[in-house]
């Protein structure tokens, strides 16, 4: 009987596969990425290396010594004091304590301050609190500390915001009106992000993390790129990380452009150039995990996409590797074996500049 190795499904469940099955799944996932993104396959050596990583007997694996990369930490201290909805562990602690725990206890290479709602728009009414917390954290901390939140353009649509919901308009075949609503929302989103970051920079922030750009489609990306451009002009030395929401930039509007490129339908390697052009320092590409496929399929696919993004990017790429992305299972408590294998594969095969 052929030796079986322990793997995971995309939802985290234990799975046993033979080496032949692993190779087949890896190649199938790789082929899916290559087909969708119109990008090259991995080489045979890279596939062999992936198989080696996946079949290592130890529970946890690590990158070869000397290949370590910075691990940036998004969602801020919400993981410490947050609730289940934010994957938080509910330890009552101030945000300063949470940030310092990451720096001094966990060994994080950078850290982020964010508020519990974690979208830009709701930070406006509590901006003085955010500024005060940033100042206190900066006085005490050494690692780069960014302010982070989600652009989340959906908050500008009814019933949460002033502009008619494009989803409702679209379903009523009011396509032009839906597009106008997105354009108005994008302008307001850009303005809010810039306004918030002007104040956070005045409070000593090292910079900004855009978390989950494009969650509301191409309008969300359009607004974020314009905010990045504006912030770069106002603050030449600001650290800007632009992290994506998904692998494919959804075309909710379909005709929005940045620098002559239509935003809708862009894959990670195509997003990289625009993010750099706008003025970001670090790009956070995303590949979604399919919960109905094995970790071999997901990792083959994710590494293929990210390798090309790293190659095409002119700025450092910190691949997004949270719950349900980057080959990590969609599970509240992603298993250490799956996380460390995905992490190692992204560094050693995709060649990421950070995580």
């Amino acid at each position, binding site marked *: 009987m052929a030796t079986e190795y322990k793997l995971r499904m995309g939802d985290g469940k234990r799975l046993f596969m033979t080496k032949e099955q692993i190779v087949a799944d890896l190649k199938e996932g790789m082929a899916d990425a290559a087909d969708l993104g119109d990008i090259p396959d991995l080489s045979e050596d890279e596939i062999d290396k992936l198989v080696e990583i996946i079949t290592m007997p130890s529970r946890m694996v690590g990158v070869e010594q000397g290949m370590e990369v910075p691990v940036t930490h998004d969602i801020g201290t919400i993981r410490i004091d947050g609730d289940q*909805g934010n994957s938080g562990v509910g330890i009552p602690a101030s945000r300063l304590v949470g940030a310092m725990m990451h720096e001094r206890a966990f060994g994080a290479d950078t850290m982020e301050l964010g508020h519990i709602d974690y979208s830009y728009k709701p930070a406006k009414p509590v901006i003085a609190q955010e500024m005060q917390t940033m100042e206190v954290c900066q006085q005490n901390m050494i690692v780069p500390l960014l302010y982070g939140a989600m652009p989340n353009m959906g908050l500008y649509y009814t019933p949460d915001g002033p502009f008619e919901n494009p989803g409702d308009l*679209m379903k009523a075949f009011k396509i032009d009106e839906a597009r106008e609503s997105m354009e108005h929302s994008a302008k307001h989103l850009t303005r809010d992000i810039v306004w918030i970051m002007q104040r956070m920079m005045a409070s000593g922030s090292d910079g900004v993390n855009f978390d989950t750009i494009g969650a509301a489609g191409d309008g969300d990306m359009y607004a974020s790129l314009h905010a990045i451009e504006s912030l770069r002009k106002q603050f030449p030395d600001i650290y800007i990380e632009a992290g994506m929401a998904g692998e494919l930039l959804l075309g909710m509007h379909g005709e929005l452009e940045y620098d002559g490129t239509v935003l809708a339908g862009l894959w990670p390697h195509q997003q990289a150039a625009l993010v750099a052009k706008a003025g970001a320092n670090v790009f956070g590409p995303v590949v979604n995990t399919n919960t109905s496929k094995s970790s071999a399929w997901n990792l083959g696919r994710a590494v293929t996409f990210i390798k090309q993004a790293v190659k095409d990017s002119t700025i450092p790429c910190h691949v997004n590797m949270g719950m349900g992305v980057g080959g990590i299972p969609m599970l509240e408590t992603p298993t250490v074996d799956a996380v460390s294998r995905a992490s190692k594969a992204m560094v050693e095969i995709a060649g990421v500049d950070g995580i």
Partner: protein
Amino acid sequence: MSNEEMFKQLSDAIVSCKKDAVLAAVEKARDEGIPPAEIIEKGLAAGMNEVGVLFERGKLFLPHVMMAAGAMEAGVALLEEDMPKDAASKKLGIIVNGTVEGDVHDIGKSIVSTMLQSAGFEVHDIGRDVPLQDFIDKVKETNADMVGLSALMTTTLQGQKDVIEMLKEQGMRDGVKVMVGGAPATEAWANKIGADCYAENASEAVTKAKELLL
């Protein structure tokens, strides 16, 4: 022109998302004596399937999907006089779709509604943060064949299970299929709570709805 070539032309016209092209192709197919049901099924509907595939691949976008759906509606309307009464406007099934209470995520659910609608289902999108009883009431009101339950947070997934329990309590479960979706939902979760299916994305939602309802 062979029938196969005509079906291809109808399908291509739908993919072009242009109403004029669709109407012209439908006229031509009708003139060639192709039965209306075949024009719709093998030409227009096949084109809409292709539109769905192109949307998932990032080659067509949501406005295009709606334009194609609008063009298909116009094409079907043109054929109505040649068909038995109500046959042309008959929907594939009735689906109530919404995001469960406590969860304000709207966009993914709206895309699913749009794709189901454009595939030929009658969709009642009841919004986001929807009180659970509203799903039951809407299913009753519309005599729906399926209810779609979206949840984007681990904390709101439970709402999907609760709606299924409410359907059972009110003796409605056997008459309505349940589809679940949203980032933290999985096949295993769908099986655990007794849903009929789980969809990974919008085009899979269409495929699974067709499997269950047609």
